[in-house]
């Protein structure tokens, strides 16, 4: 039981890596939006909704990994 608890903590740490991966994804979305917006600023305003949807989808996966980490920490 004690070893299981320790392993769960290690697993939580590993799952938290997913948050970093989600950060990379969100950065990609925002960066590419900015690159496109600078090329064609007039079209950028209409695409902010798409930007936020993209960020939300990318971030959701990071939140999933965070949730897995929390579950391992507190619920196992």
């Amino acid at each position, binding site marked *: 039981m004690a070893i299981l608890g320790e392993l769960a903590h290690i697993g939580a740490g590993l799952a938290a890596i997913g948050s970093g991966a989600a950060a990379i994804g969100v950065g990609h979305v925002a960066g590419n939006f900015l690159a496109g917006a600078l090329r064609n600023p007039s079209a950028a305003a209409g695409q902010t909704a798409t930007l936020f949807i993209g960020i939300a989808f990318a971030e959701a996966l990071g939140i999933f990994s965070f949730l897995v980490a*929390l*579950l391992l*920490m*507190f*619920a196992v």
Partner: protein
Amino acid sequence: MADTPAGAEAGGAGMPQLDFSTFPNQIFWLVVTLLVIYFILSRVALPRIGAVLAERQGTITNDIAAAEELKQRALEAEAAYDQALLDARSEAGKIVADAKADIQSDLDVQMQKADAEIAAQTAESEKAIGEINAGAADAVKAVAKDTAKEIIAAFGGKADAKTVTAAVTARMKG
């Protein structure tokens, strides 16, 4: 920290989010809340805000139309003003021209009168001068007759007046 996992173990889960015993409570109150908000919004708030926004849109449209009309009227007033100015200007020009013509005709009449007067004066003067000239010629004739009679008498001649007069007249003419 030591007793939290223990308590969590006892409660079944460490995360309050996964404590299923509270789920019915949360879901019940959430549904109540959502229904209350939905009815307040759909019955009172949203129609009111929508009406206010529509009213504002209407007001703005009306105001823009009124402003357009006022602008049109201002333009018309400006045109009328310009027209009036033009009329006044031409009127003034006409008055000036009339006055000029009046003055000119008055002047002409006066000039003519003056000219006539001058001509009359000149004629009178000429007549007077003619009379004076004629008077002078008669006087010269008389003097010449007398002088000739005297001269003839002095030479011992005898001269009748008739001959002397004829001679003097002839002489004076020649």
